[in-house]
Structure formats: structure tokens, C-alpha cells
């Protein structure tokens, strides 16, 4: 509070220009390259545009076409698979690992490093390494199945329309779990050990301690983890691009990938903008939830 009073004293009752000077350039840049483009995409979604001649306004026709496009629904369903996988597996595994590794275990540091090392790799590298894992002939998975005499289970993992999306999601989860584990480990460090001791005195067993003390205390971390996971799952693009290009027969397509292909390969840019807008609207629900939670916390200051 004191610093506000100080600011006023110097400038009297006029508005203090200093903060505006500091914020002007970064804000302008963000408006020009991020916020402005977002609104421009909304407009483009109402046009027909091939990228060469000027965009022509056609109202909601792109959206009407979207509702008749089977690839749109495949992509939407696949994004849902991504989303559900992202809010369950990393949360469960990341929390579990966090709880185990939060204790003094021999080699805990190395074990932690093993789990989050995939997170530093680019998604392209992850996609190529896993593309090789899934390779029908020499890949690790089929080679292992063959060596174990389970030849009947070996298959072209990424060329199977029913499996391709799940195979890509496995690669994505491999990269994501360590990240979530780090967030939980940080959260666990702020859990007051005296609370756990109090639980022990009251005769809590390990499960009760976890369920009634640790989990509620970690709730803020869980909220952040879930929001980040949802946003990440809606951003899925690189892995699909590099592992299957959305195939076979668009079976592993996701919204981001569908948008890219329509806009940049088929030159249906207005249509692409409409897909992007739908993707935005889904994200907006979660962005709004995050912001309103942040707003509530800010008021406590």
C-alpha cells in the first residue's frame, strides 16, 4: 500500500504515467502479435479465403460446413481422448511418483531425472523416437513381442486406424508425466510435516493421511495441473504431424492438425479459421475458469 501512496504523492492527483511507460512496448507487442490476431481469426472464420485473393464475407457458412464434415467430428473425438488421458494418467502417476519420491529414497534424484528428462525433448524428437518404437519390423515393441513368442500381438501400430490415436497419446503421456510429477513434488514440499504428525497421533493410517490431509492440501496444485493438462491436450499438433499426419484415413486427426491441413495444404483459410475458432471456444472455457480463480486469489492480497 505504501508504494501506491508514494506514487500519488509525487504526481499529485494526476495519473502516474510511469507504469504506462514501462508497460507500453511489451503490451503493444502482445496486442499486435497475439490478441489482435485472435480477433482477426474470428473475422476470417466468416470469410471464404484462398490466401491469394482478398477474403470474401460469407457469414456462418464455414461453421455450417463444419457440421457436415466427418473429419471435424473425428478430430473432436480424438481431442477428447487426448484430454481425458491428459487429466487422468499424468495426475495419477505424477502424484503417485511425487509421494514416493518425496521421501528419502536411495537414488531419488536420478529417478526423478529419469521421469522428467523426456520433457526437455522437443515433441518432434519424441515423435520420431516413438515412431521408431512402433515400427512394424525393427521397432522395440514388435521386436520384444517376437522375442517373447507373441508374434500374434505384433502389428503396424500407427497404421491401425483404431490404435493410432492411442499410440500417439502414449508418446505424449511419456513426455508429460515427469512435468506433472515436478509440480506435485513442489507442492508436497510446502505441506507442513506437523500436520502429518498430527494425523499420525490421531491414528490415521497411510491411506487416510493421503486422502484426508495430503490430497486436500495439494488441491491448488491439482487445479493448476488439470488446467495446464487440458490446454496442452488441446494444443496437440507436433506428435500427430510427425507420427501419422492424422492418418490412416484421418483416424488420428486432431483439431490443430485438421486446421493446419485445411488452411495450409488445401488453402481453405476461412474454413481453417473456423476450425481454429471452435478450438479457441473450447479452450476459452478453461482459460476463463483459470482467470476467475486467479482473480479470486488476487483479491486476497
Amino acid at each position, binding site marked *: 500500500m505504501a508504494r501506491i501512496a508514494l506514487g500519488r504523492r509525487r504526481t499529485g492527483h494526476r495519473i502516474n504515467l510511469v507504469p504506462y511507460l514501462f508497460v507500453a512496448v511489451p503490451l503493444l507487442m*502482445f496486442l499486435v502479435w497475439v490478441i489482435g490476431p485472435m480477433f482477426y481469426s474470428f473475422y476470417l472464420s466468416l470469410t471464404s479465403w484462398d490466401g491469394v485473393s482478398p477474403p470474401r464475407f460469407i457469414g456462418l457458412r464455414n461453421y455450417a460446413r463444419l457440421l457436415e464434415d466427418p473429419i471435424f467430428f473425428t478430430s473432436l473425438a480424438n481431442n477428447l481422448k487426448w484430454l481425458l488421458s491428459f487429466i487422468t494418467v499424468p495426475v495419477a502417476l505424477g502424484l503417485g511418483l511425487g509421494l514416493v519420491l518425496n521421501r528419502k529414497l536411495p537414488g531419488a534424484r536420478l529417478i526423478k531425472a529419469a521421469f522428467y528428462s523426456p520433457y526437455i525433448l522437443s515433441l518432434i524428437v519424441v515423435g*520420431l523416437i516413438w515412431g521408431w518404437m512402433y515400427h512394424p519390423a525393427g521397432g522395440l515393441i514388435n521386436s520384444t513381442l*517376437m522375442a517373447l513368442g507373441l508374434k500374434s500381438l505384433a502389428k503396424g501400430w500407427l497404421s491401425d486406424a483404431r490404435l493410432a490415436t492411442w499410440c500417439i497419446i502414449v508418446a505424449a503421456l511419456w513426455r508429460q508425466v515427469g512435468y506433472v510429477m515436478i*509440480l506435485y513434488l*513442489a507442492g508436497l514440499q510446502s505441506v507442513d510435516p506437523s500436520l502429518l504428525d498430527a494425523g499420525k497421533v490421531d491414528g490415521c493410517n497411510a491411506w487416510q493421511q493421503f486422502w484426508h490431509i495430503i490430497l486436500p492440501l495439494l488441491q491448488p496444485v491439482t487445479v493448476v495441473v488439470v488446467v495446464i493438462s487440458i490446454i496442452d491436450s488441446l494444443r496437440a499438433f507436433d506428435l500427430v504431424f510427425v507420427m501419422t499426419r492424422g492418418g490412416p484415413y484421418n483416424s488420428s486427426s486432431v483439431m490443430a492438425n485438421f486446421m493446419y491441413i485445411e488452411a495450409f495444404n488445401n488453402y481453405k483459410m476461412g474454413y481453417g479459421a473456423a476450425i481454429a475458432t471452435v478450438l479457441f471456444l473450447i479452450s476459452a472455457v478453461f482459460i476463463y475458469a483459470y482467470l476467475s480463480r486467479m*482473480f479470486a486469489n488476487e483479491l486476497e492480497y
Partner: protein
Amino acid sequence: MLRSNARKFQNGLLYTLVLALTLGWLLPLLAALVTAVRTNDEILARGFWSLPQRVTLGNLAEAWSRGGLARYLPNSFIITLPALAGTLLLSSLAAYALARFRFPGDRLILYTFVAGMMLPFQILLLPVFRLVDALHLYDTYWALIIFHTAFQLGFCTFVLRNYMRTVPGEILEAARIDGCSEWGIYSRIMMPLSLPALAAIATLEFTWIFNDFLWALVLLQRDALKPVTAGLATLQGQYIMDWTVIVAGSLEAALPTVVVFILLQRYFIQGLTLGAVKG
């Protein structure tokens, strides 16, 4: 006694389970390392678990020279380092204003940055592509440098602002009473005090910008300018049947982020938690 033995057994079992899972987690990376030094024909004909007849550095050399990694990797640095410097500098200015002052619109500005950082990239693709084209920056390093600088402002401003709020106001006031200008307080007091946060964000942002693929795909065309992510996608098409070269190239592409991570692991992890848990 019995109870403590049972507990010991339980803990031992849990530890074994975690170790097994850890090994499983490392398996794709180990498999990639092994693949990179074997020959393609052998591995395809006899399976991954066959005993290597021959160990070769040929794949690594092929990916590096003819595969283009020697060209793509420097491009990644040419794009990443200026963007990193730009976004740190500009976001620290905004963060300083948002952390230190209350002014009409401050909340709105903060939420704009936070909301922007969470957008799906697809909503920006076409307009940014168009803007870059209109500014005659299409297919130049500058397109990527400027866009990354601008987009990462959201995350950096948010995290730095949260960090700067924890700096005690008394220090800043004392400086002002000593006749320090606002710019002086920012550059000579706030920035040095924010070094831990800056280091953490820099490490994280380096890997994020370095690992970008989508924007390189959309804003660049010339092979000579491609960063290593887009380069790898090209290499994948070029060596479609030659997986040992693709995997060797992937490992080479990962090297800089691995080095940064090993040297600056502490900051990397701090960056991740600063960005998320404080929210």
C-alpha cells in the same frame, strides 16, 4: 516386530516397483541410443534384440552432414537466443509496472497477458502468417524471432510479476528516498533482485523456443533457415526408410536442450514450478 517387518517388505516392494517403472521410462531413450549406432539393414532384418554384428557412427555422420543437422542446429540458436533476450527484457519492464504500481487498467493488462499465454496456437496462425507477409518478413529469421518474443511475453510477464511482488517494498522506497529514478530502481535494484526468477525463466524459455516446430513450419520455407525441429521433419521425409539415420538425427537435435538441462537443471525445475504453483 512383525508389523515393522511387514512394513519393510511393503517399502521394498514399492521401491522395486518404482525402479522397474523408471527403467521402463528410460527404455525409449536407451533404444534410441542403441539404434543410432547400428545399421538399418541389420536391425530391420533381425529385430531390435538381435546381437549387433557391427557398431557404426555412420548414421550420426550421415544425419549431421547430408541430413543437414550441421545447418539446422545453428539456425535454432540464431532464432532462440535473440528471442529469449527480447522476451526477458520486455517482459521484465511490464512485470515491473504490474508488480510495483496500481494504476487504472493494471488488472486488465495482467489478465490479457495470462489469457494470451494459454491460447491454442491455431487461433493465431493465419493472422500472424498474414502479418508477417505484409511486413515482408515471411521466410526470414526475423519472423520467428519477433513472434516468439511477443508470444512468450505472456508467460514471462506473469511469472516475473508474481516474483517481483515478493520483493519487499521498503527496499524500493529506500532507493527512491535516496533519489533513485524509477528506471534506476528497475535496472539497479529490481533486476538484480529478480535474477533467480530470470535464470529460471530463461532456462525454461530456451527449451520452449528451441523446441518450437509449428511456427517454423508456417513462417519459414527455405531449407537453409530451418531450425532443427523443422529440419528433422524434412530429414524424416528424406530418409523415410532409413530409421537409424532418423533416430541418430533426433538424438543430435536433442543435444543442446540436454546440455542446458544438465547444467541448469535446478533453474529449469524452478521455472516450471514458479509458473504453475504460484498461479
